[in-house]
């Protein structure tokens, strides 16, 4: 299979979906500058640079989605979504229900997030939990090039608004991407590594962290299962519970601020639905309750480390 970067996987998904469906278009600050190949193939009407104004970019996408187009918007960095909340949350998320089902909002909002560029928390802020908590929206956050491609294609075909978060820490990674049409369904987790002793549940940048931790733990005879959620909403609770029922132990790992993060929902769901089989308390690892600093050593220290995951795992096995 071809080895391509996440950046290229995203480009392929966009091109394929735009080719397949003339209603798909791409809007955002600099998208036409950055993707001249899409402009060349699909023309400037379908690949549009916008003014620097996230609120109207998002609003335009929402209005267009409700009336027949299937826009993809690139909002650059997740904190810039702070300007786009009304259109995404109050309009795209709510107006289907409030209108009695009169509208659908097939749109995808792309935003980058996470440590990697040393730019500080006005660029690096993992906000997926906000959107997962907002009704009517879906949230995906892949970790491999194949999933970036396959989930973007599915997100574009979905009739609901999808937040598609790109962890910049992963952007330089290359990986195998199946040639041709290959969709990854929203709401299906992947078992990135099988194991019987405990379940490491994660998504995005911390999936490779968990995989490395699992490799280290294996050297000590501890077999950790690593689950890559891929979609945060809808959440594949079945796969998670299945794993925890087999292992009896769970550590949820993500980069976002641990407090009130996605991991809280996962730990709560596991505690609710697998209480009887839990051999140890559910643990969560996440960023500190602080904005991410720009300084590279600080930025890197913000992210749960392989060592921290191993330690959490070992602590659960000790209290067996």
């Amino acid at each position: 299979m071809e080895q391509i970067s996440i950046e290229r996987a995203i480009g392929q998904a966009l091109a394929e979906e735009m080719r397949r469906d003339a209603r798909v278009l791409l809007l955002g600050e600099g998208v036409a500058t950055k993707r001249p190949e899409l402009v060349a193939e699909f023309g400037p009407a379908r690949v549009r640079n916008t003014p620097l104004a996230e609120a109207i970019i998002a609003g335009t996408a929402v209005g267009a989605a409700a009336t027949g187009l299937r826009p993809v918007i690139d909002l650059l960095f997740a904190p810039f979504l702070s300007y786009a909340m009304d259109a995404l949350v109050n309009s795209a998320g709510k107006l289907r229900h409030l209108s009695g089902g009169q509208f659908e909002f097939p749109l995808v909002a792309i935003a980058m997030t996470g440590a990697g560029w040393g730019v500080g928390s006005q660029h690096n802020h993992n906000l997926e939990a906000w959107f997962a908590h907002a009704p009517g929206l879906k949230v995906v956050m892949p970790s491999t090039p194949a999933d970036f491609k396959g989930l973007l294609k599915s997100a574009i075909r979905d009739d609901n608004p999808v937040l598609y978060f790109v962890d910049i820490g992963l952007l330089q990674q290359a990986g195998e991407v199946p040639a041709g049409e290959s969709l990854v369904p929203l709401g299906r987790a992947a078992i990135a590594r099988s194991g019987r002793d405990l379940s490491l549940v994660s998504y995005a940048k911390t999936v490779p962290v968990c995989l490395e931790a699992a490799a280290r733990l294996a050297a000590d005879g501890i077999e950790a299962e690593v689950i890559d959620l891929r979609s945060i909403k809808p959440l594949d609770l079945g796969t998670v519970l299945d794993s925890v029922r087999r292992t009896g132990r769970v550590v949820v790992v993500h980069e976002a601020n641990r407090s009130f993060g996605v991991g809280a929902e996962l730990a709560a769901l596991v505690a609710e639905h697998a209480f009887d089989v839990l051999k140890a308390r559910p643990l969560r690892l996440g960023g500190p309750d602080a904005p991410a600093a720009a300084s590279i050593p600080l930025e890197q220290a913000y992210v749960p480390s392989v060592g921290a995951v191993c330690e959490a795992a070992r602590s659960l096995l000790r209290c067996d």
Partner: protein
Amino acid sequence: MSPLPSLARPADRLEAMLLIRAYELRLAALAAETGIPGTCSAVGQEAAAVGVVSALTGDDLILTNHRSAGHLLARGADPGRMMAEVMGRRDGYCKGRSGSLHISARELGVVLTSTIVGGELSLATGVALSQTMLGRPGIVACFFGDGAACEGIFHEALNLAAVWKLPILFVCENNQWQAFVHRRETMLAEHISGFAAAYGVGGATVDGNDVEAVRAAALEAVESIRASGRPFLLETATYRMRGHLEPDDQHYVDAGELAAWRARDPIAQLRSRLLAAGGLTDGEADAIDARIAARVAAAEDFALASPWPDPAGLADDVYA
């Protein structure tokens, strides 16, 4: 699209204005008497609504806001289904989920109503983009208030529409009030249309209490939009003769200002002008009044007879 009511003759427009007035006054009375959730009535602003809507065709789409009854009724909405919606009943345009604040009626071309001030402005550009990119004939009329013109999204929308040449009639109903704050506390200029020039688009202010003047200005604006594909900013200078949200004792309103505007009641003006010019006989006027009274009474009966929505459907129509 169901056939629109004719608003071609002055007497049609008088009847539409009277329907809006009677409908809103009845809801205001019900709010005061029975505590049904209050509405934001547009009493005094009927000419602005009817004049603009009369200039549109069935292909054109409308976006409106919390103060929408005039736009909807002028477009031919059924007052019974509207009252049912306001009361939260199942037969409302939005199955009772919207209440009075965000009534959409896609079958009438009234799409994506938002009660977030400025929400309709954020969505109109996308609706217009769909119209142009999907090769549909209609333009988009977007109603908003003088208060919405204080929100940044007004500027983002106007700018995007100008740069992308979107066929939008921006209609600012400057009723001098923004909930409990007078317009003059919120901006130095008296008129919103002044911004048109700054964005390089056409603009005009018209006497919003003169339905014939509004209609003429709107016809001209619509024609320029259809010819040029460019947006136009039309401001109707009018007055909110009742409170912000029923019931509201208007204690904060300057009595002199209110009296001066009451003396310019758009309905009384048109009626006496038509009677004086022979465009309407007393008998015809009485007949209109009788028709309206019967329609509003029937609407109320319909609404009150409509069942409540079933809480079992609390999470219906959230996702497509």
